[in-house]
């Protein structure tokens, strides 16, 4: 939510490919900026202290906790959120792998997992179960027990590899 009393900063941010200028308060988190200002509510807040990973977005290629980053720190950055993953209206390969492997239940943590794994897969393929678990270990899911998530990462990685 916007804090009307604090000093404003003008920032220029590219979110899911669209660049715009915004005046933001210095203490507004990137998560609140995305959710409240841009109404991109697919980014969720699970703990607000950087552990659960539900708020993970990609900033200049790196997966970050948007609850621990201020909006002003995103000035000049390219931010990717879950809303950008199915830009064409069709689920992307990772989203399909999540669906096909029942890698989600309540869905609250899902956006964070999708963004963490998206960033990880860009760095290279995930070859085995242990590596998949390592990739997933920065995010918490309370519903699924992770087995569907593990399989989804392996499937998506194979597809990205062109197998």
């Amino acid at each position, binding site marked *: 939510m916007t804090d009307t009393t604090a000093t404003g900063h003008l920032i220029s941010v590219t979110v899911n490919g669209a660049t715009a200028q915004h005046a933001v308060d210095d203490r507004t988190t990137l998560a609140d900026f995305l959710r409240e200002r841009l109404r991109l509510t697919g980014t969720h807040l699970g703990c607000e202290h950087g552990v659960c990973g539900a708020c993970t977005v990609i900033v200049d290629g790196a997966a970050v906790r948007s609850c621990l980053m201020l909006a002003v720190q995103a000035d000049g950055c390219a931010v990717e*959120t879950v809303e950008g993953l199915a830009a064409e209206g069709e689920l992307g390969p990772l*989203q399909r792998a999540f*669906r096909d492997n*029942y890698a989600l239940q309540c*869905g609250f943590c899902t956006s964070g997992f999708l963004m963490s794994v998206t960033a990880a897969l860009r760095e290279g393929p995930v070859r085995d179960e242990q590596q998949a678990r390592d990739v997933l270990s920065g995010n918490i899911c309370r519903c699924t027990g992770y*087995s569907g998530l*593990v399989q989804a990462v392996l499937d998506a990685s194979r597809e990205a590899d062109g197998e």
Partner: protein
Amino acid sequence: MSDHAGAVKGMIGASVTRREDDRLLTGHGRYLDDLELPGALAAAFLRSTFAHANIRSIDADAARELPGVVAVFTGADLMEIQKPLAPKVTHPQLRDYPRLPMPPSAVHYVGEPIAVVVAESRYLAEDAIELIEVDYDELPAVGSTAAALAPDAPMAHEGDESNVAVRLAQSSGDAEQALRDAPHTLSAEFTVTRGGGHSMECRAVAARFDPATGQLVVWDTTQSPHYARQQLSLIYQMPEDDIRVIAPADVGGGFGPKAQFYGEEVVIPWVARKIGRPVKWVEDRSENFVSAMMERSQTHRVEVGFDDDGRLIAVRDLVEHDQGAYCAGLQVPSITTSTLPGPYRVPNIHVELLACYTNMVPASSVRGAGRPQAVFTMERMLDRIAEHLDLDPAVVRERNLIQPDEFPYEVGITFRDGSPLTYDSGDFPALLSGTLERLDYPALRAEQATLRAEGRLVGIGLACYVEGCGLGPYEGAKTRLTNQGRVLVTLAAAGQGQGYETVYAQIAADALGLDMRYIDVTTGDTSKIPFGQGTFASRITATAGPATYQAAAQLRERLAETAAVLLGCHPAEISFVGDRACLDGDVDKSRTLLELAQVANIGKHGITLPKGVRAGLETSAYFAPERAAYASGAHAAVVEVDPDTGGVTILKYVIGHDCGNVINPRLVDGQVLGGFAHGIGNALYEEAAYDADAQPQAASYLDYSLVSATEVPAVDLFHIQTPSPLNPLGAKGAGEGGTIPAPAAVANAVEDALRPLGARINHAPVTPARVVDAIERAATD
């Protein structure tokens, strides 16, 4: 991942992909904090920093003057709503202390709400919270049941003479005498520690009052919207039709704590009404740690008597239960006492419950709900019996299991629903033998012996359980052909990720004989269905499932009857092809669902209906089970312990699971595996520690460890299906079975691994520190 026994017939039993997933995968879920509420203000609560104190005064002047703050209310400012939030399950002997929505004069746990700020943003509301000065008169606090029961203990409620909220006993046979006569007896003390639900979405409430209609609309992440509406109706003294409670279509997990009713749910709508603007409160995680209900803290002093073959003769258990600062209900400890005998024949049993007041967050159900503690106690003792007699733990279990031809099996004590504890169906030996088979048990024991000889500490732990589920009183469903020509199934039950929109369309599809793509499901809105109970105790599939099937079967009759009139045939000749009701399957002799709606629902103003057509294609059904159904299962853990660090590695895990007939196997697997991860947390990691002054010591995820993908092992999961005779679908509950026996199985495995050292595991979670302590104690004994 798993194999499901049983044939697939129609949509019931099919692993259908969930309808919910596309919106959740694209960031278009609509959780409470995502809802557009134009003009909404944000609320934040001031919470007690003391576990026990009287409030001398609260000075909120500075907070009220902060720009952007619209209002500040202390408990004393809202006396009109300071009415007790009643315990869900009570007992005539319960010494109840009123739990007030926002107590005006005294606090009894850290985190109890004492004032609320409403402001233009949450940032400003929290700024204002920091400006409120509270003058407390601190009182001694009770931080454990041991402290509560100690001689000269401080009182959790000032001026009381005892911290015991209620003392209850259940018996069958004569345990006292049987223990005296038994050839062997063993006793032990086990403690299980508090843990939370930790849904990834915390609690949240938003409300808007419309003076023109007099209606108060409340959005609430509750698992029980109709329960919330009833409580608000009583407290506000408003008719229930003037209060609409909506659990949003997307709620980010429940696991029990959201089934309870909290002060914040009373305060926020009332404040919205007072101010005349929408108000939203979203609990943050630090609030969740200190204000969402939790459970599990119990100490069991158990004694078992058995014969030379390891057959149980008697069990006596004294359960000290941490009820927290107020009794939100006796559901958890009463489930514990009735779960103790589990799948075993226990001819003589005596269970005594001492529910204690402490100065901690009130205890209420968390996935498992009192069962993990009972299973931990019983299963640890079965392993001790095996050790005492030098028998294999699997053999001891086999000898004590209730056999498949003994159902219905009367246990001799009472379940929490008030009925005699009676198991409806099951095949416990098949679950255990299937589990052992998947372990390759004899070979595994041989391998264990080899590894032990090499000095490695590898252990095998088994745990069997039953789970009372599918409880009453009832759950309902409405079905209607909408004026757009689609079938709408309306449930009172609210989902938190279970996939209701998919599962209940599957059930309705089979009852209607109609493709599920013409069927929509809506849930959790009190304005759409008048009566309901809620999602808890693994009850919905076995209650709302049959209700949906019955309502949809009635709707099929109504649709067929209407189509038959229009086509000039008998209703029995009607079947669906796509969305067409056809005579003998002939699409040229048919009416679409839309055409049926146009005739029987929409009609033509002033024109008589065709002869034989009944107006309004709508049905409803409520299913009230005679008593609880019993799901069951067997878990096996193989672990290796590092004696230097106390670290436990799970090498293999097998789950045998029986929840009766399965509606959607893939969703049931998800429930079991998700519950299992929670159980691994309870077994090894999660601990809501409080210090002696009842100050919470684990109030962030840096101190409270939730399991990630690297801690949860792969599971070899198999199912058997023994249908419940208590409902027409033969369904039982699946939500908690993954959690319940996991701490017992892991603790048994760890103690088995440490057997060469003689170390005892008496406390869950089995943390590295406790393992190292146990090894050191064994060495010095």
